[in-house]
C-alpha cells in the first residue's frame, strides 16, 4: 500500500510541475507584456522608469530564468501581487477560497445524500415512478447548464421563498445561520449535475450487484430484504460510487467558479472574473494555478484512498 501511494505521488509531481509551466506561459499569451498592461495609456513615464519596471518584474531576463524565479517564489508561498490593488495574491486567495470550498463541499454532501438513495431505490424498483424520477434527474443534470439553473432558482425563490433569494455572503463563522440560508440555493444549483452522475452510477452499480450470487445467497438464508440491500447490495456498490464522487469533486471546483458568478458570491470565481475584467493578469494566473493545484491534489488523494478501498487496484 505504501509503495502504491508513493508511486502515485511520484506520478503527480511532474504533472504538478507541468501545471506550473502552463500557468507561467499563460501570462505570455497576453498582448504586450505585464508592464505595458500596468502602465496602460500613461505617458508620463520615462524610458528609464520603464527599464526599472522591466527589471523589477524580471521581464528583461530569458524565459527559463523568469520561470525559475517565479517558481522559487511560488514555493515560498509568494504568489505575486495584484497589479491593481497591490495586495499580495496569497491574501486575496485566502479570502476567497473558503467560499468556493464551502460551495463545493456543500454541493458534494447534498448530491451524495440525495443521489445515492435515489439511485438505489431506482435500481431496486426498476421502472417504478422512483426509477423514472431518478432517470429524469440524471438526464436533467446532464443537459441543464448550472448558470441557467441558478437564474431559474433565483426567479422561483424570489416569488415563493423571498428569504432564500438574498445573497449577501456572510462567512460561516460570523453567522452560521445566515450563511447556511444564503448558501442553500447556490449549493443546490451546483449539486444538480453531480447528483445526476451519482444517481446514474448508483443505479447501474446496484443493478449489477443485485444479480450477483452472494445477494441471492443472502436472501436465501432468510435475511430481511432491507438487511440484504444495506449490507450486501449497497456496500458492494460503494466502490464505483466512491470513485466517481472523488473524481468529480475536483470538477465541482470548476463548476463552483461559474456558479459563484450567478450569485455574486465572493469566491475564487468572482476573484478570477473580476481580475480578468480589470486585466489584472497576475491574479488570474495565480488563482488558476491555485485551483488547479487543489484539483491535482484532490485527485491524488482520491487515487490513493481508492487503493485503500479496493485492494485490486494496488496491484495493477
Amino acid at each position, binding site marked *: 500500500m505504501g509503495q502504491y501511494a508513493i508511486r502515485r505521488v511520484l506520478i503527480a509531481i511532474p504533472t504538478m510541475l507541468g*501545471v506550473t509551466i502552463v500557468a507561467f506561459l499563460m501570462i505570455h499569451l497576453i498582448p504586450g507584456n505585464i508592464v505595458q498592461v500596468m502602465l496602460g495609456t500613461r505617458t508620463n513615464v520615462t524610458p528609464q522608469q520603464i527599464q526599472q519596471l522591466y527589471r523589477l518584474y524580471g521581464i528583461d531576463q530569458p524565459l527559463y530564468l523568469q520561470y525559475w524565479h517565479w517558481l522559487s517564489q511560488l514555493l515560498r508561498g509568494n504568489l505575486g501581487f495584484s497589479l491593481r490593488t497591490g495586495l499580495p495574491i496569497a491574501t486575496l486567495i485566502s479570502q476567497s477560497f473558503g467560499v468556493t470550498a464551502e460551495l463545493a463541499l456543500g454541493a458534494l454532501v447534498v448530491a451524495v445524500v440525495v443521489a445515492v438513495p435515489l439511485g438505489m431505490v431506482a435500481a431496486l424498483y426498476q421502472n417504478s415512478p422512483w426509477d423514472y424520477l431518478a432517470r429524469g434527474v440524471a438526464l436533467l443534470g*446532464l443537459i441543464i447548464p448550472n448558470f441557467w439553473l441558478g437564474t431559474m432558482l433565483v426567479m422561483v425563490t424570489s416569488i415563493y421563498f423571498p428569504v432564500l433569494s438574498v445573497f449577501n455572503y456572510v462567512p460561516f463563522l460570523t453567522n452560521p445561520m445566515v450563511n447556511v440560508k444564503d448558501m442553500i440555493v447556490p449549493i443546490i444549483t451546483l449539486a444538480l449535475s453531480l447528483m445526476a452522475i451519482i444517481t446514474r452510477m448508483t443505479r447501474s452499480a446496484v443493478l449489477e450487484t443485485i444479480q450477483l450470487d452472494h445477494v441471492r445467497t443472502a436472501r436465501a438464508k432468510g435475511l430481511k430484504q432491507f438487511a440484504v440491500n444495506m449490507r450486501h447490495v449497497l456496500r458492494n456498490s460503494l466502490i464505483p460510487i466512491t470513485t466517481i464522487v472523488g473524481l468529480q469533486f475536483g470538477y465541482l471546483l470548476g463548476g463552483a467558479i461559474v456558479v459563484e458568478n450567478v450569485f455574486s458570491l465572493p469566491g475564487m470565481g468572482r476573484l478570477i*472574473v473580476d481580475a480578468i475584467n480589470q486585466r489584472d493578469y497576475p491574479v488570474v494566473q495565480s488563482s488558476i494555478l491555485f485551483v488547479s493545484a487543489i484539483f491535482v491534489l484532490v485527485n491524488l488523494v482520491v487515487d490513493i484512498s481508492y487503493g485503500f478501498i479496493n485492494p485490486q487496484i494496488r496491484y495493477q
Partner: protein
Amino acid sequence: MALLTRKYVTNEAPSSNPKSRHRFDAGLWIGGGIVGFILILGLVAPLVLRHPDAMSAFYLASPGQHGFLLGTDQYGRSELTRIVWGIRTSLEISFVSIGIAGFFGTVMGLFAAANRTFDMGIMRVMDVLLAFPAILLAIGIMAMVGPGVISVIEAISVVYIPIFARVSRAPAIEQMTKEYVEAERSLGASTVRILFRHVLVNIWPIIIIQLSLAISDAILIEAALSYLGLGVVPPAASLGELLRSGQSLMFTAPWLAIFPGVAIALAVLGFNVLGDAARDHSAVRGK
C-alpha cells in the same frame, strides 16, 4: 455532467438487457432528430429570419404579443430571431473548435501509437492539460487572449485536443499490434500510410462518437464563457450571451432568461443522446 467534465468514450459495457437494442435505436432517432432540427434552424436562419439586430417598436413584448412568438428584448429585437442566430453562432463555435481539436488530437494520438518516444513526450503534455479543470483552462486562455469568437474557438480547441489524443491513442495502439499492420509493413508501406489509410479507418467510429459528445460539451463551455462575459461579446448573439443579457432583466422580462437556457439544454440533449446511442448501438468500447 453539464459543463464540468470532459466526457470520454468510456468502456462501459452496453446494457445486457436483450430488449435494449430497440431502445438504442430510439435514442439514435431522438438524438438525431433533435440534432437535425437544431442544425436546420442554424442553417436556414439567415434565409428566413431578419437580422438579429433588427429592432422593432415593441420593447419587452411578452411571448405571443404583437406576433413575437418568444417576445422581444429591451431594444425591441425578436427573441426568437436572436435565439436562432444564437444557435447558429454556438454551433459554428462548437463545430469549428471541436473539428480542430478532433483533427489535431487524433493525429497526435495516432502518431503516439506508432512512435514510443513521441508518445512519452506528447502524452505528458496532454496529461498536464488534463490536470486543469476544463472550464478553468478555458477561462484562463480567454483571460489572456481576450474575448471574441476566435478566442472561444482557440480555448475550446486547446481544452479538447488532449481528449481526442487519448481517445484515439488507445485503440490505435491496439490496432498497431494486428496482423494487417504487419502485412502492410512487409509490403513496404510507410508508417504514415499505415496510420491514416488503415488504423484511422478502424478507429473511426470511436472518434465520431467522441465528436458528438464533445460538441455537446463545447456548447456548454461556450455558453458558460459568454455567460461570464468572457466569450462572445454583444451585439453578436450566442446562447450564453443571450442568457447573460437576459439575466439582468429576469424580473421584468423572465422570457429573456428562460428561452436561451432551454435552447442550450435542447442542443446539449440532442448531441448527448445521439452520441450515447451511437456508442451503445455500435457497442464501441474505448481503450
